[in-house]
């Protein structure tokens, strides 16, 4: 399973990658939407964990770009905001959101459920 974690909080995303690695889930990291797009052009990721609010390309804009490049990619959004503002946009009604601070077990469970929804 190829995973990419995208967040401009470098320490957060690096630490998350280390913790996933200890649980046998290897993940690349990108510190911006732009860097994620560059990496996705080279690597066919199965899943992306995206921060919602980032400088430059936002999480929602990155979702659109990644889906254009990798139509099968699954997405999980992570947000530090208390309430998730989907701006009434129903394109996001099926998206998965997790709040910061994350619970690693919840994240891993969500990753597996997202990749293998039929195994629930």
């Amino acid at each position, binding site marked *: 399973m190829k995973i990419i974690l995208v967040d401009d*909080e470098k*320490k*957060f995303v690096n*630490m*998350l990658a*280390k*913790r996933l690695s*200890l649980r046998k889930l290897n993940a690349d990291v990108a510190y911006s939407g*732009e860097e994620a797009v560059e990496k996705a052009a080279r690597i066919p990721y199965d899943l992306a964990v995206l921060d919602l*609010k*980032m*400088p*430059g390309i*936002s999480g929602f804009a990155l979702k659109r770009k990644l889906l254009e490049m990798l139509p099968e990619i699954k997405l999980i959004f992570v947000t*530090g*905001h*208390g309430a998730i503002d989907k701006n009434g946009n129903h394109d996001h009604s099926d998206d998965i959101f997790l709040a*910061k*601070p*994350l619970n*690693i077990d919840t994240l891993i469970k969500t990753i597996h459920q997202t990749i293998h929804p039929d195994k629930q």
Partner: protein
Amino acid sequence: MNQHTIDLVNKQGLQFFGSVNASISHELKNIFAIISETAGFLNDLTQLSKQGKQLELSVLENCCNSISEEIERGFDTIRRMNQFAHSVDDPVRETSILDTLTLAVKLTGFLSFAKKTHLNETSVDTTVFTSPFLLQALTYKTLGALYKTLNAGDELTLIPTFGGPDPSGVTLVFSHGQPADLTDFPDPLTAEVADALKAVFKKTKTGLELFIPRTNDYLAAALADRQPVQKSI
């Protein structure tokens, strides 16, 4: 306080407070997220150690340093939050320009679309007699609007000019060295705040200038009969 000013403070003030509080809480959540993941990682290492894996001291040291840095970042954020909360203590007072700008740069730095801003602090500070809260709101909104016109990686310079050609006020020069699309700036609400402060925007080829009068008799008179608020701690 006349009705117009009350409406302005209520409408703009609540919106501004909400916006700043949202960005501060977002910043704090990011800090807690880093501390939480680092603590979780330390716990992971502890569990591995119990299973016989040797711990690397440098890894533990890096984790401790990271947590310390994030706690300091959190304290700094809370200091700014407290400073911002005190901006409503006095409806009008002598207000430090450099303190106001330093706080505005810091608070707007929490916005996801923020750009790096260099505040020129070489000038001797001066004060203006105005509403500290509305001045904070105006400089915050101006920086926020300019950030939206800039490209990723662009930087902004903010130069307060005291004792310039017009000694009746202070001119704040926001510059980023290239033309910016400020067609929709100031928006109606920002223009309303500027009007209450008798502040004047002037668009330039490389950004904009904001003139703040040293005194504001209209605002002082409007706020004169307002009961003092209980000061926050």
